[in-house]
């Protein structure tokens, strides 16, 4: 197990390095002048050549790329995430202030997706091609096609028209105002949770159908155990392993999906900050946030892999 953990962590570290290079390459090297982003295309043309050079030097953008890269990585290692072009708050402070909200949404949506997806899958797999199975399969196919942010906008509108209700716009924290916090978080969590539940139900259904046909399940039935304990204690634990892996992959769906969904709900989380950064063409903020999201995604997937290895010795000893 330990050697597996060490191997997985080493690969993870390599991936983080690779990811940092890609982020840097995309946002710093690709064409597109950060000065245009700061001053706007019109302001940019008004700057003289000398002024442009001075601003570039001030921002540290005229150094060689390797120097820029290592300075950026060094800053992040020291916990300095830089500043926005347009805001007083540093990016680090912003992450600490807004991050928890997005994290809450993510956790809640994963819980919801399991609560919805797994029971649906069990019902589906136990009676394949029944009415319930067909309805749930249709719904999961439908939810794969519905853009979450659109569903979010519809929910906001429906709540407003039917109940005259609008979620509070300021971001009360979980500790200071749990009720207000829940109202802010629940909408995005439901939308993202349903989106994931569609994948989870599909995956769990096919994996359960496979496991049910295994010999050991037949043995358990043959020795006289009734259907229910066989499903819950024999079949389900094995069927859920691929679902856990899928859930890890789906975290990417949550992290990315929370950006448009938070915009649709007007949730003041990190996803909304990402939207603001992108619409202001704020390169430095974007660079750090994209890197943060990718690293979080990598770490969570390492966690998922280790969980799987802990649950399933076959993987550990490969």
């Amino acid at each position, binding site marked *: 197990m330990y050697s597996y953990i060490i191997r997985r962590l080493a690969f993870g570290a390599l991936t983080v390095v690779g990811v940092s290079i890609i982020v840097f390459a995309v946002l710093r090297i690709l064409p597109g002048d950060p000065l245009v982003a700061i001053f706007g295309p019109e302001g940019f043309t008004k700057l003289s050549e000398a002024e442009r050079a001075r601003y570039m030097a001030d921002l540290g953008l005229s150094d060689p790329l390797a120097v820029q890269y290592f300075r950026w990585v060094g800053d992040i290692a020291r916990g300095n995430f830089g500043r926005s072009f347009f805001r007083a708050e540093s990016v680090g402070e912003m992450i600490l202030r807004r991050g928890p909200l997005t994290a809450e949404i993510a956790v809640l949506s994963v819980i919801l997706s399991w609560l919805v997806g797994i029971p649906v899958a069990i019902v589906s797999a136990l009676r394949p091609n029944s009415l319930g199975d067909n309805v749930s399969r249709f719904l999961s196919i439908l939810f794969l096609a519905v853009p979450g942010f659109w569903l979010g*906008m519809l929910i906001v509108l429906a709540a407003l028209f039917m109940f005259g209700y609008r979620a509070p716009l300021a971001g009360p924290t979980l500790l200071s105002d749990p009720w207000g916090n829940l109202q802010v978080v629940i909408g995005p969590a439901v939308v993202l949770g349903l989106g994931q539940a569609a994948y989870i139900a599909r995956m769990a259904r096919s994996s359960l159908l496979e496991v049910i046909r295994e010999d050991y399940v037949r043995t358990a039935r043959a020795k006289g155990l009734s259907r229910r304990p066989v499903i819950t204690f024999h079949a389900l634990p094995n069927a859920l392993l691929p679902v856990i892996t899928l859930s890890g992959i*789906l975290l990417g769906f949550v992290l990315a999906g929370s950006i448009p969904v938070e915009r649709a709900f007007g949730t003041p989380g990190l996803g909304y900050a990402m939207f603001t950064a992108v619409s202001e063409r704020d390169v430095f903020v974007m660079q750090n946030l994209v890197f943060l999201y990718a690293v979080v995604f990598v770490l969570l997937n390492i966690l998922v892999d280790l969980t799987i290895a802990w649950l399933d010795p076959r993987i550990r000893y490969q």
Partner: protein
Amino acid sequence: MTATEPETVYPVEQIALTAESARLRPTGGGFRRFVRRSPMSAFWGLIAAAIIIMAVAAPVLAPYEPLKSDFRAMSKPPNERHYFGTDQIGRDVLSRVIYGSRASLTVALGAVLFGTTLGALWGLASGYFGGRFDIVSQRVIEFLQSFPDLILAMAIAMALGAGFGTVIVAIAITRIPFGGRVIRAVVMSLKELSYVEAARGLGASHLRIMARHILPQCVAPYLILATTHLGVAIIIEAALGFLGVGIPPPTPTWGNMLADSLNAGLVPPWWLVLFPGAAITITVLAFNLLGDGIRDMLDPRLRSAV
């Protein structure tokens, strides 16, 4: 929502296993067989075809100019002159939804053709040659897959500046790893087969073996992959438009229309929200179900997998 498209991650092994059985047979009556085997997919295939026709014939079908404002009819709910209503500057929503299909389909087709094909060729090369090239390729693909795909697309679209081409490139790059992985797995299992060995023994060059003996076997998995990714590409394009890094505003796209609706006052009028989103959903649903049908037909053994 914008998905990491996990269900295409899983069948990978199965595609590889069944690569032999997944052979394209261009026989006559294929269409009739398709309809009989999966009427649901055939129905949604018709809808997909209708959407493509709608995009091509947009100037004929649209009742108004998509960019023309009618200041006597601003923010009007659906009525007999404007079936889908008008937006805050008096543009006809129905016409804009019809024209929006152009942007969506062009971007999705372009991104999938470009990205999946590039990924597939990469996977072909790395699977065939193996060795150090393969190891490095695998790592790079892993790095690319460490980004949630919408986030990578956002970053690239932002860095390149808004525009039609940049959106296609941004989405295409997020599709590369999928093509690479699936086709690599197929090629790995193929190159050990005896007929490939025989070709090598007869002195065929690497290029010839790849083009004549391995490539044809990759067509079925490639088609399955491409159709499943069309839907994802459409959703990413809409999300980019919604976040303001898609195709720039005057062009009607479904994502832009949804973003616009948020600027139409404190509460967006429902018809500005409902119709573009429904268009996205129906289009994605049509292409996904068509893809499912194509997968079932080309590779029956995958049927139980998803």
